[in-house]
């Protein structure tokens, strides 16, 4: 029989697990954390200023102009929504598949989902140009008829998909946190901490009846989140695919976008996890090299699916016999934005190929660099799809270029400030590994001591 390798290293007892995972919440923050937090927070302040200008002066500060009216905000929206998908994949889909290794990364991956969706959600709202009228996006009784929203529009589907996704993933994440908040409350020596975590734990006490309902709910939420996460990026791809523009109007978009989302999300999980392992030494026993290796395998697999989609798009463009379709793809690879296309291909298709080698899959510096490349590549993928399809369409009289301004850079870079600030706060304030979920898998890979399985 093949021996399973342990999911948690170091022969931990139940008490050790609690102590290790609660430690970052209970001790004074390290210098490294404070430095990163100050950096991220400064970037967030910069972001707020940029967004203030974009809202106050107008969306014209960005490079959006004829014929490219979808730019950085839409590109970055799709990028961040995609990042979010890996979190749900790890927490819900792998849960349904009974992949026990997911337990120690699920919490952080899900936190990443919540923060990525929050970061993403701002963009379409601001991209309307008049965010103070954003409530028009929802169907509510009004005095204009009432004039209802157009339910036939993919943009409206997106409103429903993203808001449902944000709500459900936040609830799923919070429900997972409840028993761990109770643990921190019970350990707290300090009155404020006891009160705060006591409120957050909602009075959870962990009786067998409660656990029975809780486990059922967790399974149900996982079952609901799985089709939900697939629907969200499918609907995001409909924003493009339902239009008639060559380069957007393709049936491959939904699976292609979902695969790309998982790909980019796992890359972000690896980026963050390598850093968390450096920052919080005690987590190395929980998020082991085996975990990182499995995630790298997923990155390579989804990277090749994405590569296949790139190739398939070209083939279908040629096979369709449609001159506009053929032109768009030739223009994509060899036109003025060819550099972005080849950047995307080399980052997304070529760079993950190093993971064919076990040594590379298990090397922290290698995976960190590759995951950064994938993040860059996936941003460029959305840039290529959005901008290159728009900039040269049917009539040469309508051709033009995207007028990238430094506000575009500010929006893109600043969004990382928002994401990282939230993520760093999370690492300090919430148990970053699920305490109650890791305990039952402690014995995996060790000799069984009792008759239990």
């Amino acid at each position, binding site marked *: 029989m093949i021996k399973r390798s342990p999911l948690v290293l170091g022969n931990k*007892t*139940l*008490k050790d697990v*609690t102590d290790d995972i609660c430690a970052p919440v209970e001790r004074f923050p390290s210098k490294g954390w404070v430095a990163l937090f100050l950096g991220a927070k400064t970037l967030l302040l910069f972001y707020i200023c940029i967004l203030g200008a974009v809202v106050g002066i107008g969306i014209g500060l960005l490079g959006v102009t004829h014929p490219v009216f979808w730019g950085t905000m839409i590109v970055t929206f799709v990028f961040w929504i995609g990042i979010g998908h890996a979190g749900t994949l790890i927490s819900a889909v792998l849960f349904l598949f009974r992949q026990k290794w997911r337990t120690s990364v699920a919490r952080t991956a899900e936190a990443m989902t919540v923060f990525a969706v929050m970061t993403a959600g701002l963009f379409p709202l601001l991209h309307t140009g008049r965010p103070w009228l954003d409530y028009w996006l929802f169907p509510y009784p009004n005095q204009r*008829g*009432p*004039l*209802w929203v*157009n*339910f*036939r529009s993919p943009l*409206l*589907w997106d409103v*429903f*998909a993203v808001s*449902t996704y944000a*709500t*459900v993933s936040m*609830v*799923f994440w919070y*429900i997972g946190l409840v*028993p761990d908040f109770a*643990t921190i*409350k*019970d*350990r707290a020596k300090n009155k404020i901490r006891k009160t705060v975590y*006591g409120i957050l734990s*909602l*009075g*959870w*006490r*962990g*009786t*067998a*009846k*409660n*656990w*029975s*309902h*809780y*486990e*059922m*709910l967790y399974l*149900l*939420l996982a079952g*609901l989140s799985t*089709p*939900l996460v697939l*629907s969200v990026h499918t*609907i995001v791809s*409909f924003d493009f695919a339902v239009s008639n523009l060559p380069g957007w109007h393709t049936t491959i978009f939904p699976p292609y976008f979902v695969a790309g989302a998982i790909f980019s999300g796992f890359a972000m999980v690896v980026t963050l996890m390598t850093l968390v392992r450096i920052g919080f030494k005690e987590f190395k026993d929980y998020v082991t090299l085996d975990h990182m290796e499995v995630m790298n395998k997923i990155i390579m697999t989804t990277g090749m699916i994405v590569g296949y989609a790139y190739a398939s798009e070209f083939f279908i463009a040629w096979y369709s016999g449609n001159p506009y379709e053929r032109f768009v793809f030739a223009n994509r690879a060899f036109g003025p934005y060819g550099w972005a296309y080849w950047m995307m291909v080399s980052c997304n298709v070529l760079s993950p190929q190093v993971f064919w080698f076990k040594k590379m899959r298990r090397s922290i510096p290698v995976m960190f660099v590759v995951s950064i490349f994938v993040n860059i590549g996936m941003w460029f993928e959305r840039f290529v799809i959005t901008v290159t399809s728009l900039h040269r369409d049917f009539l040469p009289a309508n051709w033009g270029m995207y007028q990238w301004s430094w506000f575009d850079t500010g929006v893109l870079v600043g969004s990382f400030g928002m994401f990282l600030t939230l993520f760093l706060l999370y690492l300090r304030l919430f148990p970053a590994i699920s*305490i*109650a*979920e890791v*305990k*039952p898998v402690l014995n995996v890979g060790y000799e069984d*001591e*009792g*008759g*239990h399985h």
Partner: protein
Amino acid sequence: MATQYTKGIAGIWDKESLILKAARKTRETGFTKFEAISPYAVHGMEEACGITRSWIPYVTFIAGLIGLLSGLALTYWTSAVDWAVNVGGKPFFSLPAFIPIIFELTILFAALSSVGALFYACKMPKIDPPIIDPDLSCHKFAIFIPYNDVGYDESKIEKMFKELGALEVKKTEY
């Protein structure tokens, strides 16, 4: 929320295998209102305590159905009845285009109602409920028998818990 806490007796263990044995024994002795408290979901605890399958899935199903019908009603009524607007010559009731909305509302209703059901089932949120031992959310396990359970006898229960290897037996409130 005003909840009455009941007095009773609790035994505390520090091994998963012992708590399972103790729960089974407690149930076999005839107690019905006892609670088994653990820091995580112990595999096999439901069988040991005789807990039946959770009823939350029924809530999920019905809420999902309500969400589906609400989505259908919302899209149909606004697009085809209340103020039908001709959009690109498409039918007023364009069902395929409404499916994403209907789907998202199904999921949203089902998920939020299930969470509501958990709150109801576990009587959450609860303000500052008494805890038998702070280690019960860390590495210890307990069984609590309330005073109003059938055949409640403190000395007998204490003896039984001790025989089952309890570290500690204490009179408490839960």
